[in-house]
């Protein structure tokens, strides 16, 4: 039976109806047509479904949409400001950190959560923060470089 929930997605407050078995991932892709969020394994192993909930990365395939009630969800579509890309998005392009691109939304969102908390992370910290996302192209080196390059410069 569908139930209405209220939540914020990419800064927009909305009301949606969800079934108990609807995952946050299904709501985002099938309900809201925000297809930047990917489903890889659907079992919490690959991390490509990662979105930010209240600023922290979660596997949206393992979270019921009902539990997103009252929370703020950020998907990859929510990062750019109009035509201006988020510094991490631009950095991934500049560093060539994208091969097939399937893991990029999750990598970028995981990196955003990290940089929001720790603007100047060590390489080891970056690796730990990204450890929940698999890149089957093996672009890890460039992905790490892209996160380092996107770290705000000391002023």
């Amino acid at each position, binding site marked *: 039976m569908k139930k209405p929930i209220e939540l914020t997605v990419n800064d927009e407050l909305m009301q949606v109806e969800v*079934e*108990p*078995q609807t*995952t946050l*991932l*299904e709501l985002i*892709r*099938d309900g809201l047509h925000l297809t930047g969020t990917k*489903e890889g*394994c*659907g*079992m*919490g*192993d690959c*991390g490509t479904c*990662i979105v930010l*909930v209240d600023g*922290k*990365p*979660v*596997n949206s*395939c*393992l*979270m*019921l949409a*009902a*539990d997103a009630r009252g929370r703020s969800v950020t998907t990859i579509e929510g990062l750019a400001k109009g035509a201006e890309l988020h510094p991490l998005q631009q950095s991934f392009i500049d560093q060539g950190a994208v091969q097939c691109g399937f893991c990029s939304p999750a990598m970028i969102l*995981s990196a955003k*959560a990290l940089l929001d908390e720790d603007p100047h992370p060590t390489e080891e910290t970056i690796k*730990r*923060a990204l*450890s*929940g*996302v698999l890149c089957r192209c093996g672009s890890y080196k460039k992905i790490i470089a892209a996160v380092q390059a996107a770290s705000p410069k000391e002023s």
Partner: protein
Amino acid sequence: MKRLKPFAYREPKTLREAIRILVGEGPRAATLAGGTDLLVRMKQGVVTPSLLVNLKRIKGLDRIQRPKAGGLSIGTLSTIAALERSALVAKRYPVLAQAAGFLGSPSIRQLATLGGNVGRSSPAADMVPSLVVLKASVIAEGASGKREIPLDTFFKGPGQNALAPAEIITAIVVPDAAPSSGAAYVRLGRREGMDCALVGVAASLTLDGAGSVAEARLAMASCGPVPLRARGAEAFLSGGGLAEERLREAARLAAGETSPISDMRACADYRREMVEVLAYRALAAAVQTDRKAR
């Protein structure tokens, strides 16, 4: 897309209501906390609960606090990420923050709960060995009231525990650590992120005034049907000093007290050898954390 089959679903607002629903539904009901394990097994069709009782609308179950009587009380819905970040945990029980950092990945830790990690009762549970050496207990509530179950008698087999039907874990409580004591958790996986423990060993050492071991505790993950204690090694360490060869002998004894399985992650012989290596490292690290504390 991997979908969950439709299920009956409730979001009780109080513990009492949750227990009443569970009693009414019978043994095929399941409680939902973080969902990182249950929802996977539901997608796989391994479990098919008749009713899912989501505990997350019950207020106060995610508190990490120090009760007036001392120690630490960790609400069942506390996430592993919250344990990793808690200043209270870092100050008094750094081994728990350390163990939290091994579980899954940052995004899994954001969802997964301590109550879920204990209640799932997997022999590989990363939080359990550290909780066992810290003498933690499970607080469970059911229709007939509240009770406390020492964690080292809680586990009954892979996925099985001492909870009665319709009983809910509400908190994990840990007593104050002895003044001169240290603890550490060391674990091995196939890779550093996103894998369950191939072997995990937690050690705690409490010293007497003369610098001898007053009490030692060693607990191991993925070494048998339940999280195991190495009681022989603990007894051997008691009353003696901290010389390297004594720690090594204790580690050798601990390896002999395991009954690991062979699976896709490792064979039993390899696991047993790694217990010896890890138990020594955990003991040596426990000595270090004690020295730092003083």
